[in-house]
């Protein structure tokens, strides 16, 4: 008879309020343990084969632990399961996800922007070619997703509409699920535009607010140099009013100079935004390396130290102000990001196909769309982007966070060339534990907010 073993990917930790938590990075089962079951779970995980199952409660505990893969049969190979899962999803061809940049031009001149706004709007010829290309693929698809990106995509709203209506028509004909998301600076997101969002199938909107007005208005400025904070807030309030179900994500880009001032925004943002949105923080990253046209890079070490120390503090402070924070890491993952998957492309305004929204330039494209709707691929470069295999790398095979990281950033791998043995992850087990505590507080906050809403409804 096969014995039992504990998963390599369990994280047992205590939240700040003393609650015991158990997370498994493969199953993503995240459990709260009461004081009675905690010592039992410790015993079970430490030595599952000698755990005495002599009460109904312990039988149930054992079942739950197996269900969440905290423990499993001894002959089960977690790495092989993870690899299968990842390969099934990475190389599937029945879904298509396009990140479309309808223009690279922008009405903002953010101080940290890495993009080159030279390319204008996508021409009608390329739009037609793109729709025809998608139409051809449609026969094998189950789902089609568009992420609008730029530049500022709303500067090319006509392109967004034309492409969406062209593609949606074929999705309806072939019964393919369609959905879209948008990353916008929010400045042009007025009532007319928002009303149209519904027709464009937009289910999620991300807008950046980089701190309180005095910080934001120095960084996210119009071409004229004028600040943008007030108008973005006004537009977000319209969005909240008109689209009750849309997901709203506030992204806060930060750096050494702004970390300390960012918490001031938590008191200033209107309650409606606090109630309806999720917030997250990202350090402004150094520009791409010189061969991609970037400038000299900051040292990796300095960047990582900031991420580890400052970002968890911001997440914690935001939660203390009742913001639900955006943590996309802890769901079952199959890849580090979309660039890892065969059926994801970034489409620039000239119809060039890329894998990454950061590492892109016309010279480095993996293919392009012709006005006739053909995709001419550079298979060699595409293969290079998709060649990352964390399961063959010792550093990844040994790593406890592999199920969430899956080998890290493709672009870093691509740039590293021969240095594939190096770890390209931004996370480590300590960082992960800090973020699991944040995730737990999110659940407490959501429960609190739902309770509050129920109370408000019943008191009306």
């Amino acid at each position, binding site marked *: 008879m096969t014995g039992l073993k504990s998963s390599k990917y369990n994280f047992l930790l205590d939240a700040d309020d003393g609650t015991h938590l158990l997370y498994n990075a493969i199953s993503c089962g995240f459990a709260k343990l009461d004081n009675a079951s905690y010592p039992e779970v410790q015993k079970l995980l430490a030595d599952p084969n000698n755990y005495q199952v002599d009460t109904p409660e312990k039988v149930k505990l054992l079942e739950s632990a197996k269900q969440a893969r905290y423990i499993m049969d001894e002959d089960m190979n977690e790495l092989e399961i993870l690899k299968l899962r990842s390969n099934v999803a990475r190389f599937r061809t029945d879904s298509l996800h396009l990140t479309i940049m309808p223009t690279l031009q922008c009405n903002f001149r953010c101080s940290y922007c890495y993009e080159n706004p030279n390319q204008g709007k996508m021409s009608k010829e390329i739009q037609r070619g793109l729709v025809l290309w998608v139409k051809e693929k449609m026969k094998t698809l189950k789902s089609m997703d568009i992420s609008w990106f730029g530049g500022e995509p709303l500067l090319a709203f006509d392109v967004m509409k034309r492409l969406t209506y062209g593609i949606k028509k074929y999705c309806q004909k072939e019964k393919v699920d369609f959905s879209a998301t948008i990353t916008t600076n929010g400045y042009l997101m007025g009532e007319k535009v928002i009303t149209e969002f519904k027709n464009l199938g937009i289910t999620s909107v991300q807008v950046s607010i980089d701190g309180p007005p005095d910080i934001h208005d120095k960084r996210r400025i119009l071409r004229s140099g004028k600040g943008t904070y007030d108008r973005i807030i006004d537009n977000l309030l319209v969005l909240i009013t008109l689209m009750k179900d849309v997901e709203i994500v506030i992204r806060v880009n930060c750096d050494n100079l702004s970390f300390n001032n960012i918490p001031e925004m938590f008191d200033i943002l209107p309650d409606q935004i606090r109630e309806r949105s999720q917030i997250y923080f990202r350090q402004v990253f150094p520009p791409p390396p010189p061969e991609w046209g970037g400038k000299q890079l900051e040292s990796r070490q300095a960047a990582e130290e900031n991420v580890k120390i400052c970002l968890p503090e911001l997440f914690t402070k935001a939660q203390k102000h009742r913001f639900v924070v955006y943590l996309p890491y802890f769901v079952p993952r199959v890849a580090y990001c979309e660039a890892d998957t065969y059926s994801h492309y970034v489409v620039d305004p000239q119809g060039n196909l890329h894998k990454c929204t*950061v590492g892109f330039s016309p010279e480095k494209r993996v293919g392009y769309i012709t006005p006739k709707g053909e995709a001419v691929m550079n298979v060699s470069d595409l293969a290079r982007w998709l060649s990352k295999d964390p399961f063959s790398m010792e550093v990844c095979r040994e790593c406890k966070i592999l199920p969430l990281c899956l080998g890290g950033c493709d672009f870093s791998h691509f740039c590293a060339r021969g240095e594939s043995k190096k770890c390209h992850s931004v996370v480590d087990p300590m960082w992960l534990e800090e973020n699991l505590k944040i995730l737990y507080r999110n659940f407490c906050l959501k429960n609190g907010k739902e309770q509050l809403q129920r109370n408000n409804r019943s008191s009306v």
Partner: protein
Amino acid sequence: MDFLMNPLEVGNELIRIEQTSSRAQLNGVCGICCVTLTQ
């Protein structure tokens, strides 16, 4: 043991992966990128 997040169903996990991985929800909206670009 009170699950805040339910685990993937053992035995049906590939089906679940197929159902969900096609969506941009793999990473939500532009969620994970943009911090590592230092070499």
